[in-house]
């Protein structure tokens, strides 16, 4: 299966290598660098690269390439999924997954990788189990370790590894028992020039933070479960119960986890919460272009649209932009041609706008296409699909937990074509 792993940073240096079978020379990465050179953007590097003796499968996250070396047939998604799991674990352990963080914790990284794969086959990827085997580094623990001489490595096989609920460790104790659920929905949409919707979809997740003592058994029910069209569960959810009663019944892992992700059926019309009025023109022959953008709320059910961020990659001929925002700040990077406008809140009484002119390269002809505009926003306390949690019950333990549910709507891949 997975033979070796190389971590490559943005400048093309290998800064970490790990081999699970016999060592593979790092020159195998030359094929990868070749592909990287050919691709203009790091995102464009093909995920699977065949070389004469090996296959390279790579994942690009946090500006780091995780390049796995494969020697024989294996489902590529298997490797890709695993690499993403590795990144998630690093993030979980070190807070951030950057080159510096990995270099600082190289020993922990090595111990983790050693535990996660045996002979290239995943052994333990569940974060609850890993955290028992290898304790995450904290400043306090480092101090304690140096004084007492104890280690970061668990001495016993994690109980979860063998039990029927491998995701939960035993003997969990909290003084405050709490369970928080965040229902987060994202709108993916493409809006065309005239403002009509080309496509719009709602994808949602329920992220949970459960800190409960013992072995609680939770059930979560919805007011309108029919909205959920296609769901995928954390392994802890009992599938049979969901099929029969549309109730989520599960013994939760300890800590943060993603309980559920769902797709709202595309038949339902999606209420697009913002609209954009735009007028971007380039005149033939002149070295000036006009830029005019106004945002406004729409169908937000009285909720405020927050942390709005507009970004757009302007055509290559644009040399500079001279704009004035009615609120917020904007930046324009003349190298990448990326225009970002941090709007903040949208006030329905006074709509935010960004107006001004762009200076173009002299003599260049006008671009054929106007730039697409990507919008990010957040609307707290609202689930755009209308999904509502009915109740949360706990069985199996005696205490009364503190429960909380939060709703939130965000823009996913929200694009406006102009």
């Amino acid at each position, binding site marked *: 299966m997975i033979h070796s792993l190389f971590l490559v940073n943005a400048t093309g240096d290998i800064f970490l290598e790990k081999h699970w079978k016999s060592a593979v020379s790092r020159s195998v990465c030359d094929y990868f660098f070749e592909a990287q050179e050919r691709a203009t953007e790091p995102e464009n590097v093909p995920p699977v690269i065949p070389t004469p003796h090996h296959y390279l499968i790579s994942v690009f996250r946090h500006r780091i390439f995780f390049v796995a070396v494969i020697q024989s047939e294996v489902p590529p998604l298997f490797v890709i999924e695993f690499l993403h799991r590795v990144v998630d674990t690093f993030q979980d352990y070190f807070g951030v997954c950057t080159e510096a963080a990995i270099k600082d914790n190289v020993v922990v990284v090595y111990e983790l990788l050693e535990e996660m794969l045996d002979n290239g086959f995943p052994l333990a990827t569940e974060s609850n189990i890993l955290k028992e085997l290898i304790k995450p580094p904290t400043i306090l623990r480092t101090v304690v370790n140096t004084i007492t001489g104890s280690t970061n490595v668990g001495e016993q096989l994690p109980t979860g590894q063998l039990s029927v609920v491998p995701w939960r460790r035993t003997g969990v104790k909290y003084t405050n028992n709490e369970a928080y659920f965040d229902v987060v929905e994202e709108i993916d949409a493409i809006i065309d020039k005239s403002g009509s919707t080309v496509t719009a979809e709602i994808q949602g997740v329920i992220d949970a933070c459960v800190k409960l003592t013992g072995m609680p058994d939770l059930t979560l029910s919805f007011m309108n479960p029919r909205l959920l069209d296609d769901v995928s569960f954390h392994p802890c959810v009992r599938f049979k119960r969901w099929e029969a009663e549309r109730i989520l019944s599960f013994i939760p892992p300890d800590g943060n986890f993603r309980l559920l992700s769902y797709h709202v059926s595309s038949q339902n019309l999606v209420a697009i919460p913002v609209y954009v009025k735009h007028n971007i023109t380039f005149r033939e022959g002149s070295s000036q272009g006009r830029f005019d953008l106004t945002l406004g709320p729409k169908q937000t059910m009285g909720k405020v649209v927050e942390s709005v961020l507009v970004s757009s990659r302007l*055509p290559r001929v644009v040399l500079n932009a001279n704009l004035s925002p009615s609120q917020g700040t904007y930046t324009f990077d003349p190298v990448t041609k990326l225009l970002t406008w941090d709007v903040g809140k949208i006030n329905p009484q006074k709509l935010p706008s960004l107006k001004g002119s762009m200076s173009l390269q002299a003599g260049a002809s006008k671009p054929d296409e106007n730039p697409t505009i990507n919008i990010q926003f957040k609307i707290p306390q609202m689930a755009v699909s209308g999904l509502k949690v009915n109740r949360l019950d706990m069985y199996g333990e005696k205490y009364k937990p503190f429960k909380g549910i939060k709703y939130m709507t965000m823009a996913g891949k929200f694009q406006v074509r102009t």
Partner: protein
Amino acid sequence: MLESSKESLKLEAMKRVVGLIAKGKNASELFPAVVKNVANKNLELKKLVYVYLVRYAEEQQDLALLSISTFQRALKDPNQLIRASALRVLSSIRVPIIVPIMMLAIKEAASDLSPYVRKTAAHAIQKLYSLDADQKDHLIEVIEKLLKDKSTLVAGSVVMAFEEVCPDRIDLIHRNYRKLCNLLMDVEEWGQVVIISMLTRYARTQFISPWKEDGVFENSEKAFYESDEEKRKSAEETKPYAMDPDHRLLLRSTKPLLQSRNTAVVMSVAQLYWHLAPKHEVNIITKSLVRLLRSHREVQYIVLQNIATMSIQRKGMFEPFMKSFYVRSTDATHIKTLKLEILTNLANEANISTVLREFQTYVKSQDKAFAAATIQAIGRCATNISEITDTCLNGLVLLLSNRDETVVAESVVVIRKLLQTQPSEHSDIIKHMAKLFDNITVPMARASILWLIGEYCEHVPKIAPDVLRKMAKTFHNEEDIVKLQTVSLAAKLYLTNSKQTKLLTQYILNLGKYDQNYDIRDRTRFIRQLIVPSERGGALSKYARRILLAPKPAPVLQSAFKDRDRFQLGTLSHTLNSKATGYLELSDWPPMAPDQSVRNVEVAEAMKEWSPAVGKAKSSKSDDKFYSDSGEEEDEQAADSGSDEEGGSEGSTRTPVSLSSEAESENSETSEDSSQSEKSSDSGTGVKKTTTQKNKKLQQAKKPRKVRYTQSQALTISKLVSVCDRVCVCVCQQLSSPVFVPVHTYELLHRMTGKGLAAQYHFSRQPCIYDDRMISVQLTFSNNGDHTLENIHISEKTSAGQNIHCFSPIECLEPEKSVTVSMGVDFNDSTQAASFQLCTKAEGFNVSIQPAVGELLLPVTMSEQDFSKEQGKLQGMNESSATIAMTPESITSQPLHRKVVNMANVGVVPSGQNNVHRFAAKLVSSGALVLVCVVQKDSGAQLTVNTEKTIIGSMLLRELQTVLSQGS
């Protein structure tokens, strides 16, 4: 720092070493210092040492051997985590010498109580297999056993091992099939992926196709799935298709996994449904696959590829989700292209207007490569859907005025392809293109236009010669591909319109004749011969018109994913569209369903099979099979006690390192070892308690070696190296079991002198279980008197310099009964008799065992090359030789072999020549090699003995001489 006594310092040092490894720096010179810490109590330090070992053991095999004893000890640790990690490292260090040790460890771990350890064993199987493929058969046994395992933890790993070691042994799966299906939900996600893909292959061989019944998709399937199925269909149509319940079980048990959060699992279920489910059920995977598109970029890439393949065959599946494949400007280029591919596949009469509108937006994209791909896609849509061809053509012609070169070029190429389908109506387009010709610089586009003009020159009779004139001017500046087309154009025009173009053509042909590119020169020469009538009256020129102006079939624009369905979906081979190493073909459905009763498992039997005690017994049985040698068949000594035999066969697999260890140390350790092994079996679990006496013996036999390593750790490096050198030498001299065991017994005590007690001894020729330097001697006591003899034992060892390991006292021996015991004697490689006092309760008798020189040896197997190499080292003083006259009947090789091995315990070296016989052995005590070579001549033989111990050599020579010269 590694040598430091302080643990924290060591740990710090080790962390730095691991840092070096991580950076890819070579840290191998630290090996000796690191290996010393392998037995450290600190778990974190130990783990780091393991990391180091696994990385460098392959390069430093000799030194790595030093750590093995630690792992072997850890394999018996009560903590399952430590047992498992020891097995992991042991199996990961990839040193070929330890293959037998690994094999044993795997077998033991496979019946461990902890599923975690069993899982590790399953992983170790693959490692051992990649290290030594010869172990396959034994590994399959272990796999078979582990497949029966009910633990969900093990299932995934063992199926992985199955796929790696013996994917063709489908018979192993039958009985576990239903269990695997039922467990699937609870297996960890990585295991699910492996199991599902294995079950897909399995189902393809075991169930009949569910596809024949549904008529809905029949049309599209027919073409693709084997025409011979149709023949069968007529026969089968009479009886309705009923799905095998096991087939149904598989589909049912995998369906919930579509809801998994792991994309790899979802994908593997999707491919399972695609390859196995009846056509009307496949649609359930659509939603899940579309959901995966929300995931990371790399996941999207793979999923889109698979959807692209699916969408060619089954448009209906993804059509409702067409909007999910709309391209966003932020997508990576390869994802954009794939989405485009899918949209093209999905386009039909109903939705083409929407698709085309989308395409129009894409054409204007800033990503020009993507815009070009869109134009190709439009071209494909236009050919597939005849209604829109005109619209598309008009659209493409508009694009010709685009400023971007690549876009224009691509449009020209696509237009050319489209025009080929219906040229007559589009002469205006050709004219338009001819006008644009001056502005287009992309060679491919220029070449395309030239070809178009040449092909349809009748439609544009005025323009064509003009274009040719322009080309003649710029000929030398053009790219090769344009030049070639110019030559073709010239030829075609010459044929249709020779009046206007004759001179031009000749000019161009002359230019081409002296071109730098040989392709162009060749083409020019060919064209000239073809069209210009030469004096030799070219037979071909009559046909020139037909050759050059033949109507060409229109190119078929088809998807790049057209033939990808020959690979199983979701595999690496599918992604690459070429066969990856280790790809396993998905077989076609069998015509008739194989017997389905093979999957029946009787519940009671299964339970029994699972109980650990039986498993243990089974494994030890297989041990026997593994270690037994053909030579033992000749062993007529039925009276051999079981333990003896076991010890012997164990010794034969052992690496001979331990031979050089001190006898005392081992003696002292043996007792400790047995107590240790007892301790571990107590603290362990039920399984270990059931271990038989035999197994304990096995452990004992293994122990001395371990002890040695720990001692060696204290030695200095230089000594270590020398030890390891010896190891290497010994490798080529694997001990083998005796070729022949003579039945001849010698008298130790006559019944008259023994007052009723008679004793005989016999050399069993087995490596001694007590000590490697001892020779095992079997004593048979028989009571010929009329009263019971009690407490028979050895009391005084009278002779000096000889170690004797006594047999345990015999409490009583009834009259007319006999008993056999074994003892070990270290003769120190001399034929001096070992004397001792044999005592009963009442009396003592002085007896002595006289060893024959041939019994002081242990057989060794080596290759012919090794033999001659070793012989070369033992020349001169160490060689003694003699010529003997031989009786005619001993000429054939078999009796000669027979005689030699009867007389001395030597191993036969395979020989290339008929008249040369080689035998190899080593002295039990010193380990010195003894090489015997017999070269047969007409009536005699040349006998050579080479050994360091010249006395033994000459004695052996003398005895062999006597034996061989005698008649048989």
